[in-house]
C-alpha cells in the first residue's frame, strides 16, 4: 500500500467534493457540508489530484512556510478526520 492509500481517503471520494473558495465543502453523495480554513482548502484541492504525502507536504510548505515535520503531522491529523467524515 502506498502512502497515499495509507494516509488519505481514496482519490475518488475526495474528488467528488464540491469546494468553494469560501471554504464551504459539500459532499454530493452524503449531503453533508463542512467548512475548512485556507490551509484545509488548499489541502483538499491537493488531495483531489493523485498526490502522495511527500508531494502534499512539499506543496503546503511552499505556500504556508511551515516546517516539514510539523506540516506532515498536521496533514496526517487532517486526513484522519477526513477519513472518518467522508466515506
Amino acid at each position, binding site marked *: 500500500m502506498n502512502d497515499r492509500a495509507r494516509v488519505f481517503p481514496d482519490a475518488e471520494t475526495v474528488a467528488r467534493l464540491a469546494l468553494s473558495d469560501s471554504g464551504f465543502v*459539500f459532499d*454530493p*453523495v*452524503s*449531503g*453533508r*457540508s463542512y467548512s475548512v480554513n485556507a490551509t484545509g482548502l488548499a489541502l483538499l484541492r491537493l488531495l483531489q489530484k493523485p498526490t502522495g504525502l511527500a508531494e502534499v507536504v512539499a506543496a503546503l510548505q511552499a505556500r504556508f512556510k511551515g516546517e516539514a515535520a510539523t506540516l506532515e503531522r498536521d496533514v496526517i491529523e487532517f486526513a484522519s478526520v477526513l477519513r472518518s467524515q467522508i*466515506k
Partner: protein
Amino acid sequence: MMAEPRFTVAVTGMNAQPENPGPGLAVARCLREAYGPRVRIIGLGYDALDPGLYLGEYCDSAHMLSYPSGGSDAMLERLAGIHAAERIELLIPCLDAELPQMVSAAPRLAAMGIRTFLPDAQTLARRTKDRLPELCALAGVGCPEIKPVASASFFRNCQADGWSYPMVVKGPFYDARIVRNAEEGAAAFHAIAAEWGLPVLAQRFVAGEEYNLSGVADGDARLLGEVMMKKRALTAKGKAWAGVTIYDQGLADCARRLVQALAWKGPLEVEMMRDAAGRYHLIEINPRFPSWIYLSQGVGRNLPALLTELAFGRPAPALAAPRPGTMFIRYALETIVPLGDFEKLIMGGDLSRELDPKNPLQNEFCNGKPRGAGGEISPPFVMNSGRSPEPEGAL
C-alpha cells in the same frame, strides 16, 4: 394563436400542519409552476382546516372527501359528485391511508372518466411494511427484519427471541418510534395501536443515516426522474424541515431494483438507511409523492408534471440532469381565510372561490364559468366532513 387546452387535476392531501405536512399542496405547487393557468387544480381534503384548500393560487376549488374508513362506496359517491361539478381528468392521491381504496376504485374511476396513474392492488400490497423483507430478498436490496406485533408483551420477552434494543416500533401506515427498552416499547405499542390499529410492527434498528428518493415508475419497470434527498433538519415528528439533493448511484440502483421487482406504476418515495459501510437498507416504500416533492421542481425534475404527462399518455418530458447540492428550507405561513370560505367547506364540503385578478397564476375561469359569472356550485349531496368540528354558535 390558439390557446393550449386546459385540463383539470384533483389532488388529495391538502393538510399542511408544520410538523407533518401532507404532500398535496407541494404537488399542486409543482403542477401550477409547470402548467400555469392551463391546469385547473381541485384540492381535496379531509378536514375543513386543511390549509391547502384555502390557497387560491394553487387550488382553483376545494372539496372535502369522506374518510377512507367510511368505505369505498362512500368515497366513490363523493368523488362522483365532485366530478359532476369539476370534470376531473386526473386524480393524484397523496395519502398512504387512502391509497388502498383509490387503487381498488381505479377501474370505476376510469369508467367515470377520471384517470389515475397507480399500481394495482396486488402490487400496492407487496410494499407494505410487513412484506418488505420478502420484496427486498427478490430485489437484492438490504432490509432489516420486521415483525408484526399483536401484544405489548412482545417487548418484555423479545430478547429471548433474539431481538435487542434499540428497535423501531411502527404503525401500518404512519408513525415510527425508536425505543430503547421494554417500557418504551410497550408505550409506543399502545400509542400507535390506539391511533392506527393493529398490527403494530417491530423493525430491527439500523445504525446509519437516512436518505430518501422519489421518482415515478412508468409501469414497465422503469424508474424515471429520480430525485434524492438528505434531510438536514427535522420536525418533532421526524419529517424533513430542511433538506439537500444528493446523488448516489448506489441509492439509485437500489430504487431501480425495487421498482423492477414490483413492476411499480406511479409515484413513490423510497426511504433507506445507509450504514457506516455505505450499504443501503430499505426502511419504507411510500406509494405516493413525499411532502418535499417541490424540491423536484427546484432541480428541474418536476415529478408531478412528469406523472401528469404519463397519465395523459404523452411522452415523458426531458428532465434536467441530477443536480446535487440544492437545498430547501420549509417555513410556516399564515393565510387569511374569509369566514365564509370556512363556512362553505364545513357546511357543504365545497369551496369555489372568486378569482384574484392580481394573481396571474389563477385560472380565467372558476368551475367552468367565465370570470364574473360567479363560481358557486350547488352541491348535489350532503357531505360528511369527517373530523371537521361542528360549526360554533350554530343557530
